[in-house]
């Protein structure tokens, strides 16, 4: 599991020596100043990259829907930061975990290419938005069907346990997706098998338009932990340090054979389900309240200044670097070619490598060349 060296970016977090998974605060206390600044970098990169994607979307350069994690950057970044690259930990992100993917090594160029359906995107144009990844990269791409990644990650981490590896897995699940049968079967299976898996419920208040009270009658999602016989913890998902801490302790518990932990991270989805959604169903003032009092980046800037005495210049320099990286990535991605049509026939099976083109397929080349602007066909969902 070689760590992919990334020019100019901070290195992966070293593994702290003696974490006690049972003591809150114990994990975060071991973070270095450098690591704390790194957390800021990832959160800023997440937000700015999504803002750039919004621009591209408005220019109709994005094919399909665009999904934001505005206001949820801390939860994705803080939790992913708790995994260990060198050891080969693996996570499975959701649509609002772009930050987690970035932390684990996804490149902005890849993400922009993917959103633009380019031929050299990580899936060669086969899958959309941030549905990509692979075990060797430390993150496995999701599919749309909510809940399905929980059983899959149970299996990934079962393999760790069967092989006696000290690797850990992390899977995210939305408040809404906890209602799926797949979530239930997967977390129960992992719990019984004592798989080294951390399950994070991202409670952002909504599933599309559906508020959590229509999703479950439970007072809090973490109450589900006892029903699976596993420890449960709830934390402020808009506090990146708290998120890191609670995840890190769960990761260490898993690594030591303590099995599955369920974490509920409290956060809030400030944008609609996707860019097209006008959030008409959100009570007046709710978004503003979160924006004003509980923006994870603003909160973290204050913490950084207080805790490690970060200066305005330091942070501004990070912001500048982020923008520069995004500019470069955008330029590169925009120049990428669309896929070759016949690449569609490659790689359904290991053998045969390629499917035969259908006999009638003669007039298609020209049809493909006359495409309408792709953005026009965007669907409403991810």
């Amino acid at each position, binding site marked *: 599991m070689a760590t992919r060296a990334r020019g100019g970016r901070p290195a992966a977090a070293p593994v702290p020596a003696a974490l006690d998974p049972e003591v809150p605060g114990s994990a975060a206390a071991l973070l270095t100043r450098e690591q704390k600044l790194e957390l800021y970098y990832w959160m800023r990169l997440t937000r700015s990259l999504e803002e750039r994607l919004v621009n591209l979307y408005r220019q109709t350069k994005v094919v399909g829907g665009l999904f934001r994690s505005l206001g949820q950057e801390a939860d994705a970044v803080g939790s992913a930061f708790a995994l260990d690259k060198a050891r080969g930990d693996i996570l499975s992100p959701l649509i609002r975990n772009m930050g987690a993917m970035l932390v684990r090594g996804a490149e902005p160029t890849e993400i922009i290419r993917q959103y633009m*359906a380019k*031929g050299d995107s990580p899936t060669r144009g086969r899958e959309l938005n941030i549905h990509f990844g692979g075990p060797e990269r430390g993150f496995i791409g999701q599919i*749309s069907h909510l809940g399905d990644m929980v059983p899959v990650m149970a299996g990934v981490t079962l393999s760790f346990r069967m092989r006696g590896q000290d690797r850990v897995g992390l899977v995210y699940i939305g408040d809404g997706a906890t209602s799926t049968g797949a979530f239930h079967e997967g977390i129960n299976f992992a719990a019984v098998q004592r798989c080294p898996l951390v399950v994070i419920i991202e409670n952002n208040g909504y599933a599309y338009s559906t508020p959590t009270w229509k999703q479950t009658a439970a007072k809090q999602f973490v109450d589900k932990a006892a029903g699976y016989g596993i420890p449960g913890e709830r934390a402020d998902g808009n506090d990146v340090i708290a998120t890191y801490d609670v995840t890190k302790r769960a990761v260490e518990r898993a690594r030591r054979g303590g099995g599955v932990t369920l974490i509920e991270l409290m956060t809030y989805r400030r944008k609609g389900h996707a860019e097209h959604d006008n959030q*008409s169903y959100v009570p007046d003032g709710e978004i503003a309240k979160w924006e004003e009092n509980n923006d994870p980046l603003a909160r973290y800037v204050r913490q950084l200044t207080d805790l490690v005495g970060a200066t305005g210049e330091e942070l501004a320099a990070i912001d500048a670097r982020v923008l520069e990286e995004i500019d470069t990535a955008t330029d590169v991605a925009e120049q990428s070619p669309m896929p070759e049509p016949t690449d569609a026939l490659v790689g359904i099976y290991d053998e045969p490598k390629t*499917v035969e083109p259908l006999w009638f397929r003669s007039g298609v080349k020209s049809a493909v060349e*006359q495409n309408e602007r792709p953005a026009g066909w965007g669907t409403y969902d991810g």
Partner: protein
Amino acid sequence: MGKGNGGGAGTPGTRRGTRKQGEPVADSLAVAGGEITYLEAIREALFEEMERDPDVFCLGEDIGAYGGAFKVTEGLAARFGESRVIDTPISEIAIVGAAAGAAHMGLRPVCEMQFIDFISCAYDMLTNYVATARYRAFLPTPMVVRGPSGGYVRGGPFHSQNPEAAFLHTPGLKIVYPATASDAKGLMKAAIRDEDCVLFFEHKYLYRRIKETMPAGDHIVPIGKARIAREGKDVSIITYAATVWKALEAAEILEREHGLSVEVLDLRSLLPMDDDAIVATVKKTNRVLIVHEDTRTGGIAGEITARIMELAFEWLDAPVLRVTAADVPLPYSPPLEDYVLPQTADIVVAVRKLAAY
């Protein structure tokens, strides 16, 4: 997209929906007599049936105040209350199972799958519980499962599926997949009144791209009857859903450029299938092309071919051919999707081959 292009189904009438995203809907019931879209036709059917019969209710994800991911149920909650337009948890098994239970008790539930791709999660409940209830336990289960289906919209592998072939071999279910706005309305009303479970697939490419004036009165299209979408005498195309429009587009080209007279049969109902209409068109043209958007192997063209064999083998002057998607999970990027899905040009090629046979 211009006519004759391959990127999407060729359509008459408007290319875009009647309403921009986010714009409010003035009145969810169309002004009597005006043209309405395929999507509005479905909504109108839901309105009329809920108005007519207090036992009809809807359930699904985000269908209440929000009106559904595609706004099919927009206005229903306002009119009929949230207790008849129920926002559910993300639980396709429970949506379908609860609908079945309510249907046993005499209600008439209409389930929305946010995208029809998620019907796969309820596959057990539908094929084992619902489909067999009448047969094994004499339990009527009048219910509809509906949702946006089909490709040509850059939806990728999980927002573009055509699930009809997966349910075709399940006795006890019915399947419809309309191609026009008036069929969408008339079949939805028939489906809601049907005493058994009807899977109602709505082609999302057609939602806002086609418009039509609805027939007056209580417009019902009977389940199990095909429709001749275009008369012709040289070659028959048997198809349904979005590819009906591609077939019509191809038929025009073939007539104009090659002097061929093509008949287009729109099946509308897939289970039960209209054998009489199939046999009639075979006897008329003696040459048949089947077109569908689903993947080739195991797609429903096989069943149609087998029926033609059994019922009209002697009448065939050429093999029954298929134009279908390639056997791959549907990719997302436009050049890939266009390459995988059947296009008008493909139909032209295939019909010419049949005509020359």
